[in-house]
């Protein structure tokens, strides 16, 4: 476990450095490395709502956005995985909604809030947090994980999830709350100096 954790944390760190290299000097080798690692993941995420060809095309567009938006990445705010996931999801929403204006939260999170605050939570970088979060997630009970998956990957509200699982809304709320409390409590423990 220990070795694996370190490797994951390193990978997250390395990914952040690669994005910074793209931002600072348009580093194509750095981009290729990012692409190799993330494009298949983005594609796999997109294949939940599109066939393989479209998923492939949208994944490429998402990664090309990564190239162009690299300067707005801030490792104190988000890990590369979180950031790329947000870009991928927005690409998908764009594709689904086909509206002319960007969805409401694209810009504000990626560009507007970038590096403006130095709140207490920035003492631990989001990138370091990412490695730990992955370990914590693996320890979550399956029923809690299922709900998180539905919410984040299938984009379902609490109400829809409750209907699908045949659970009362209150139960869904409390499972989500429980899993998030666990994750956040573990994070906060980590953040104590």
């Amino acid at each position, binding site marked *: 476990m220990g070795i694996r954790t370190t490797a994951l944390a390193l990978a997250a760190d390395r990914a952040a450095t690669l994005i910074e290299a793209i931002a600072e000097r348009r580093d*194509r080798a750095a*981009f*290729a490395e990012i*692409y*190799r690692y993330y*494009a*298949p*993941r983005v*594609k*796999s*995420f997109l*294949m939940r709502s599109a066939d393989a060809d479209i998923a492939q095309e949208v994944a490429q567009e998402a*990664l*090309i956005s990564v190239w*162009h*938006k690299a300067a707005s990445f801030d490792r104190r*705010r*988000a*890990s590369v*995985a*979180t*950031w*790329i*996931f*947000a870009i991928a*999801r927005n690409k998908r*929403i764009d594709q689904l*909604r086909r509206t*002319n*204006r*960007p*969805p*409401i*939260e*694209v*810009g*504000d*999170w990626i560009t*507007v*809030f970038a590096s403006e*605050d130095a*709140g207490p*939570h920035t003492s631990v970088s989001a990138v370091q947090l*990412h490695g730990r*979060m*992955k370990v914590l*997630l693996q320890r979550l009970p399956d029923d809690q994980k299922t709900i*998180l*998956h539905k*919410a*984040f*990957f299938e*984009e*379902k*509200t*609490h109400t829809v999830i409750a209907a699908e699982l045949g659970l009362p809304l209150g139960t869904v709320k409390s499972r*989500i*709350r429980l899993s*998030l409390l666990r*994750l956040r409590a573990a994070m906060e423990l980590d953040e104590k100096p």
Partner: protein
Amino acid sequence: MSNHRAPEEMLFDYAAGTLPPGPALAVAVHVALDPAARQVVDSLRAVAGALFEDHCAARQDETLASDDEIEAVLSRLDDAPAERHLPQSYAPPEFAWAPPVLARWLPQRPRWRRAFGGFRHIPIRLPGDAYRVSLTCLEPGRGLPQHGHVGAEFTVVMAGNFSDATGSYGVGDFAVGPGTGDHEPIAGPGAPCIALTVLERPVVLTGAWGRWMNPLVRRGML
């Protein structure tokens, strides 16, 4: 200082991208103005990012990127000019309290309209949204006519403050309407209270005079 956070499940659905546009805008404005809410949303997104990396890794073997594919994408990188940041939103100076995420949705030349009950408002149109979204401005010490709701109501304060039976709300605070109960929000003294209000259904005026106006309110004429 009061501090009213949006309900946890709304912050969660916002972070997961599942809120409809109206409520999503209310939460976006709240998150822009309240660092604590922003921290919650950031950590929820960190959860999403970790889940994404973890979960999608399981399926990636079937879809590994080939060298050809990478070459093809590298050759497309310079096709488009570097994406500019979203155009900085240009709220007119008298709308300086509007965070950028809201300024983007203001009408070109926003102008306050008087509404029945002595307040002013500016309707905001979001694509594909069934909610009634508007800016509301209450003069200091003035109240909204007593009204009730048949659907959800979310209010985010951007300037000044107001209070009703549920508490007092300052800049960045998120108020959830009283359900089916009536309420009568009153702006604090000193400065006008400016808020974003998001309604699932038109309000129902419940005061002695107000109830006569309901047909007009439902048609969006007031």
